[in-house]
């Protein structure tokens, strides 16, 4: 057991650090008085920066070389993330594409799809978005209703709605999970598609949240035409393809959990700044409990990496780290607000945005309750809740739900 870099890892870290030191001045400035304000400018600058990172080999670190990646392991990816954080420069803009959707294409896509899409994705020339969740399909993702119908010429027509879509407002493409056969049980009748976001019939609408900002979007599809070669991973195999994406999502969380800035040192600083609070036993006790758990998550991430490095796939228990991070940050925001007072909730406070963002984050990537179900069943081996949707054609589920109510 060793948490230090091996000589090879140290050399890699030095190489990354040197490049960042030399190119730091070209990175977009996102905080402080010099910060870019206009969203279009920010996106343009971050795309260009992603391109530079990609050229230098600091994006797609784990992608195979034949697709423009570095063919390195998750530890090198983490080293890269850590050094980018240390250098206080933004990371890649399209973390969803490069971290989750690209690897899904690499695993399931046709060679033509990989050749066409992976390069522009990696360099930030074409940003991608993930079109999975729907208003009535979140934790129960296999309940998607967005419907793609096969046409006589082999093309498809897509109608439906997606929601919680990050980056859709400037994405070039989306990876979309649609129902293609409603007459088979729900996990079987889905297919994954590549959707051009500028196609006729695609409408993107910002979705404002508690903070007042719109970080996510709703995306509407009104009889959108898709070519036959838009299918990824085969017709009817959408669920298996989606599971691959979700697996990479867990890896991304495992590698980047602390990237959200929810870490014990930052929260402790807020308490340390108050002369009274830092000596108050109750405040200290709460801080100690929160901080211990958040510290734990950092090392859970290292355990996940060790498993990845050995070629093991991280299981759903990585989801427990998410539960810990989100609930820990919620408690920290609460404690800091108790200490600071209403100023912590002011528009320009360091904390207001986090406090507003966290209640929604609790449900991101599956609600906490569904995560606890999944982990209880897959990790602890507890029996599943009786299900009313097993083996029943999707088209009949709706009427059954009505009857049960």
């Amino acid at each position, binding site marked *: 057991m060793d948490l230090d870099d091996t000589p090879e890892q140290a050399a890699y870290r030095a190489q990354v650090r040197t490049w960042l030191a030399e190119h730091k001045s070209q990175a977009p400035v996102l905080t402080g008085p010099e910060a870019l304000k206009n969203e279009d400018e920010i996106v343009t600058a971050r795309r260009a920066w992603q391109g530079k990172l990609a050229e230098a080999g600091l994006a797609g670190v784990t992608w195979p070389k034949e697709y423009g990646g570095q063919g390195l392991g998750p530890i090198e990816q983490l080293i890269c993330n850590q050094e980018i954080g240390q250098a206080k420069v933004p990371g890649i803009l399209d973390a969803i594409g490069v971290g989750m959707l690209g690897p899904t294409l690499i695993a399931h896509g046709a060679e033509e799809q990989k050749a066409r899409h992976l390069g522009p994705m990696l360099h930030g020339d074409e940003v991608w978005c993930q079109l999975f969740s729907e208003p009535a399909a979140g934790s129960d993702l296999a309940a998607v209703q967005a419907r793609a119908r096969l046409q006589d010429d082999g093309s498809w027509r897509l109608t439906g709605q997606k929601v919680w879509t990050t980056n859709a407002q400037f994405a070039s493409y989306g990876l979309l999970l649609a129902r293609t056969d409603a007459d088979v049980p729900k996990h079987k009748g889905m297919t994954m598609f590549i959707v051009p976001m500028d196609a006729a019939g695609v409408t993107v609408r910002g979705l404002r949240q508690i903070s007042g900002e719109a970080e996510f979007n709703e995306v509407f599809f009104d009889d959108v035409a898709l070519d036959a070669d838009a299918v990824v991973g085969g017709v009817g195999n959408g669920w298996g393809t989606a599971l691959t994406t979700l697996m990479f999502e867990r890896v991304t969380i495992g590698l980047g959990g602390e990237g959200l800035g929810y870490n014990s040192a930052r929260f402790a600083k807020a308490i340390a700044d108050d002369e009274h609070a830092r000596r108050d036993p109750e405040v200290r006790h709460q801080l100690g409990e929160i901080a211990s758990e958040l510290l734990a998550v950092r090392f859970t991430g290292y355990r996940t990496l060790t498993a990845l490095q050995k070629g093991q796939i991280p299981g759903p228990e990585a989801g427990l780290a998410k539960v810990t991070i989100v609930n820990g940050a919620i408690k920290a925001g609460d404690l800091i607000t108790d200490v600071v007072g209403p100023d912590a909730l002011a528009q320009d406070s360091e904390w207001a945005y986090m406090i507003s963002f966290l209640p929604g984050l609790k449900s991101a990537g599956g609600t906490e309750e569904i995560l606890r179900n999944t982990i*209880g069943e897959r990790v602890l081996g*507890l029996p599943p809740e009786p299900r009313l949707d097993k083996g029943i054609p999707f088209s009949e589920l709706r009427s059954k739900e009505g009857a049960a109510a």
Partner: protein
Amino acid sequence: MNLALSDEQVFLREAARGALSRFKTLEAAREALDGNAPLPDLWPTACEAGWPGLLIDESTGGAGLDAFDAMLVLGECGRVLAGVALLGHLPATAILNDSSGAPKDLLEELATGAKRAAYLPVSPPSDVSEAWTLDPAHGLARPSAPTAVREDGQARVSGRLSFVPDAPGAAVLVGVALLDGKPTGVALDASAPGISVETVQGYDATRSLGHISLENAPATVLDASPESLAGAWYLAQALIAAESLGSVETALDVSVAYAKERHTFGRAIGSYQAVKHSLTEVLRQLENGRSLLYYAGWSRTGKPDEFPLAASAARSVAGRALDQAARTMISVHGGIGATWEHDAPLYFRRAQLSRRLLGGTAGATDRVAGELIAQASAA
């Protein structure tokens, strides 16, 4: 970076599990509570396995291993509530091992287990207090560390220490005393005049505890740095954390097995979300604790500046995890979980007493805050 156990560590753990499985430790724990029979003496088993010398250098007869290896053994003890006197012995040997000029023959006897040591737990200063303090006999106020005066090249130590793990029967006592106001390492022969050890009948019969009274007791002054003396406290925190998480593992395993086989309303109770989520919560806390054991185990020599934070965080999470696990074990089992015949009460007793020893889980939690506040102020 690599957080996997080495082959040697896996072997150490499996060997510990095997050795302890030869004893009916849970039955013995219940018998001991009833006052019917003394606990089995596990020290010969520990000696056979080489555990007393885990943290002593090979040059003086030990295994020369580090905290994480010791934590693996303590975890196995915790799994079966085995009362092996390592929680007291190992921090004591760590202080002696770090002290230049500690008697070689003593270290060798401690390494083989021919002699058993107990650590005199003294909590080091924090961000809000300069004082080295002791666990109180009663109440919240923490008394000051024992004091020492020099006499004939030796020292005479006076003080009262309460709830000292593994003190009864220990041949050597090792800890901290204030000599001219400075924290100083001291080693005492427990049979010397001026020393009395009173055995404490605990809520948890598997935990050997003693109140120690020192009155001008003769002691050898050790050449130990304040960091080493503080390090022993944090080592004890890491060890009791590891032991607690071992108990959590068993409590969770037993609870999960029962939740699968017990049926109500035509379903296994583990299929109900209320039960499933409470067990998953135990798993969450267990996994957090495991991650912190790696941090603590690595940092003691890998990043000593962070060892106080890492060990305290591990203790904090593990103590709470064991409380949660023991309570969940009882509630998942329903009424039977609260009966004398069941093992759940043994884990509950272990949880409630453990979390108040060695500064307590709450003390460790406060220390986490203190370390982070100090870091934030220094930055």
